């Protein structure tokens, strides 16, 4: 078998005229990988492509050497918890997981044992006999997770798996992901909140408008940000005057007016030169009320990457 990687090679997917993802090239090693991007950025599309629920218009995908066009072999080693419930009407959590295992070729005894184990791992043993229809959002999330892990897959794909979980369950779920990753497996999950996943992920892939805008270990992603321009929000009177004074400087790459004429959003490649320039302007008699870094936290970094693509 080739290297246990998930490879996207120049993959594009369109829904008619609508762009799903565009020219995505990725190599995902085992470990926890998070796809992060705002709603509609293409996270679910990538996961559906990965598991063969949709097919790429261009490019190719292999998952640990298998093609998503070959579900018989790919799904044997893959579990996907989608954002949709699939439990048949009236099924209990146990029925749902058990039924699904029959499709993997387990006989009914083995299926029962494995279903019970999987439900226990997600903490649903008590609720296993109740109907999925009566579950809370978090419980449904977990029963889908149980279904995805029940056949002990090598590749675990999870669409927004932390959504709707309370803190305790969330910690348990994360521990489960780590356990999978520690055994050399793939855990690919998605989120639209970077903070939610940045500390648990071995790799983060930032997506905006169907394109990968940054990828790598989370530290590398941050470093990449540090080399990028930073952004400041300036509150001042006579904003357009200040803007024109700043505009000529070569460390300033972009200026946007905000809130009418009262504020400026300035993008600079050099913080020190920028501070000096502001000093000059203030000395020249312009009132600068405040200068706030607009991207000091992870959110801002994220805003920068995502917003910058628009």
């Amino acid at each position, binding site marked *: 078998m080739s290297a246990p990687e998930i490879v996207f090679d120049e993959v594009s997917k369109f*829904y008619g005229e609508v762009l799903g993802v565009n020219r995505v090239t990725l190599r995902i090693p085992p470990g926890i990988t998070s796809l992060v991007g705002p709603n509609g950025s293409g996270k679910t599309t990538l996961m*559906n492509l990965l*598991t*063969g*629920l*949709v*097919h790429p218009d261009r490019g190719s995908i292999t998952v640990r050497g298998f093609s998503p*066009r070959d*579900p*018989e*072999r*790919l*799904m*044997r080693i*893959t579990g*996907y918890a*989608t954002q*949709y*419930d*699939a439990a*048949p*009407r009236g099924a209990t959590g146990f029925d749902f997981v058990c*039924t*699904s295992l*029959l*499709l*993997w*070729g387990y006989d009914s005894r083995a299926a029962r044992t494995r279903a019970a184990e999987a439900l226990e791992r997600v903490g649903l043993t008590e609720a296993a006999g109740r109907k999925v229809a009566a579950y809370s959002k978090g419980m449904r999330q977990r029963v889908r997770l149980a279904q995805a892990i029940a056949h002990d897959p090598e590749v675990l794909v999870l669409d927004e798996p932390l959504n709707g979980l309370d803190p305790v369950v969330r910690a348990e779920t994360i521990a489960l992901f780590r356990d999978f990753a520690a055994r050399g497996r793939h855990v690919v999950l998605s989120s639209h909140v970077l903070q939610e996943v940045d500390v648990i992920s071995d790799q983060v892939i930032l997506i905006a408008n169907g394109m990968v805008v940054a990828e790598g270990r989370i530290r590398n992603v941050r470093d990449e940000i540090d080399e990028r321009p930073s952004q400041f929000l300036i509150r001042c009177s006579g904003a357009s005057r200040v803007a024109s004074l700043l505009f000529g400087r070569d460390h300033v790459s972009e200026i946007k007016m905000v809130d009418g004429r009262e504020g400026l959003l300035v993008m600079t490649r050099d913080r020190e030169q920028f501070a000096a320039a502001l000093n000059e302007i203030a000395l020249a008699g312009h009132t600068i009320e405040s200068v706030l870094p607009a991207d000091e936290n992870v959110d801002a970094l994220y805003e920068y990457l995502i917003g910058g693509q628009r």
Partner: protein
Amino acid sequence: MTRDFRARQIWTIARLELRRVFFSKRSFWVYGLALFPVAIFVAAAIGMTYERRSYEAVNRVSPALINSVNEGESVEAVLERLGTPVRDREFRRRHRGEDDESEELLVIRNLRYWDGSRFAELRFRNGILEAKFIRQLISLERQRQAYNGVFHYYYLKLAIFFGCLGIFMNLFRGEMLDKTLHFWLLAPARREVLLGGKYLAGLLASSVIFGAGAALMFAAMVWPVDPLEARAFLAGPAAAQWARYAGAAMLACLGYGSAFLAAGLLVRNPIVPAVVLLMWESINGFLPAVLQKISVLHYVQSVCPMPAPMDDGAPALVRLFLAPAPGTAWPLAVLGLCALTAAVLFVAARAVKRLEINYGGD
């Protein structure tokens, strides 16, 4: 990944799917379609039994007495010889004479007599027997004709057609609407295996529903018939006929099922393929022989023990429309239908490989 493994997967999928097909709300009206004519036959049988009982309670005359009545006899003479009729109706009508001047009072009296299996309808005009009709209250022959008519025109052309539409279209399309299709697509099974499993489930469900419907209807058809006659029929040709009707019903499920399964994969709106297929099956009789072979009804009708009944009084156009296709020998018909089904399933298999989850934006 042996052949054996795939066969077992097909069976697992079919078993899981069967529960859904039998009990889903979407298929409840299919039961209605299948059982409606059974209910009609049962109601008719109850009506006839009730009628016979009410006659028996009044008077029963010997068949010879009924045969002895002749046109031209007077009411009084008949009443005296045969006794109380089981039914006695009288109408009076003013009747203009030939010359338009005179007005004559016309008295029509209908007497009905019962001999235990036949009834005679005697019509008297002004007290003189004018006409006599004798009819079997329940005749096996008439019951069979009725069954055959219902089977051809209602069962094959409507009930099974729309029943299969409901069952097979929903195998994929229904789950797409319910947003549950990914459950199957994420199983470690080839798409063709999934198609096979779902088709098998639909086929089993529809065959059971409509095969059982046809059988129940057959039983309800024989039920009111005179027990002696019924026993002779059941011991004789009944089993073979029953088997052929039930077989025809199942073959219709096989053929329509594959067509609707493919349609459900290829088109979004179920109305369009339904209308197209219905038209196609209806005009099939006019088509050149080659095209007639691409029709489910063409084969299925050849398997039925009797051709579709045709009333000689029907207008020419209607007769053309309803005309059954010239029959093929039934083993050939079965082979033909299987070949047609295989071809349609092949198209469906290609479509299912391209199938993508599309739950609509949200």
